[in-house]
């Protein structure tokens, strides 16, 4: 077996990615209640970072890129360069729904769905 063959880790990836998405949704709800919830901001940054890393290593580049955008956004918010807004939270909620759909697609077909429109919207938040 090729030492770089990661197919046997797909089940683990799906489980941990889904757990992260549940946590993301919880943190989005916390931020909807309080835009300045520092713990939720920190947690979103770490969760997005982790989801990005494991998605990229498994070859799921769209999941990785979407997570990377969320990571960058919450890094900027943590550093005081940006603030949480209702529009941002709605965009992130949409991306999360796309992630859920994409993970189901990955599970059955090992391919991701197109999330480019959502990622473009997130990129604009940082410009």
């Amino acid at each position, binding site marked *: 077996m090729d030492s770089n063959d990661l197919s046997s880790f797909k089940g683990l990836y799906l489980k941990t990615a889904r757990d992260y998405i549940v946590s993301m949704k919880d943190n989005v709800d916390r931020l909807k209640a309080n835009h300045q919830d520092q713990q939720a901001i*920190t947690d979103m940054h*770490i969760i997005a*970072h*982790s989801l990005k*890393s494991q998605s990229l*290593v498994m070859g799921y580049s769209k999941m990785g890129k979407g997570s990377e955008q969320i990571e960058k956004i919450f890094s900027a918010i943590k550093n005081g360069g940006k603030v949480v807004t209702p529009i941002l939270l709605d965009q992130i909620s949409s991306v999360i729904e796309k992630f859920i759909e994409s993970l189901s697609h990955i599970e059955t077909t090992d391919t991701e769905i197109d999330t480019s429109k959502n990622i473009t919207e997130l990129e604009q938040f940082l410009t």
Partner: protein
Amino acid sequence: MKILLIEDDIFFQKFYTFKLTEKGHQIEIGSNGEEGIMKLQQFQPDIILLDLVMPKKDGFAVLSELRKNPAWSAIPVLVFSTLEQKQDVERAKQLGARDYVNKSFFDFENLLKKLEAVAGTRTV
């Protein structure tokens, strides 16, 4: 080789433990920076594999703490990074990390080579 893996992500904990144990290495895990430092009280690793972004004490804080303690400052550290973290890698190296492993794609042979190379840089 005895490896202390300080990594909060469960996927990577299991992933690296499986891959490295298959090659005969002994792995201990710290699920965050605080836990990683606590593990050093009872486990003497040949090398530390360290994630930078973690809750409860990040990788930079761990590196700072390692270099302050004479019992730990000699242990070589290999940090994980992703493609966008070049500045973080530089900062980690200034804090004492010997090298880094790119977490964005998996190259097991490269990881093994780096582990061997970095573990050999342990100072007395």
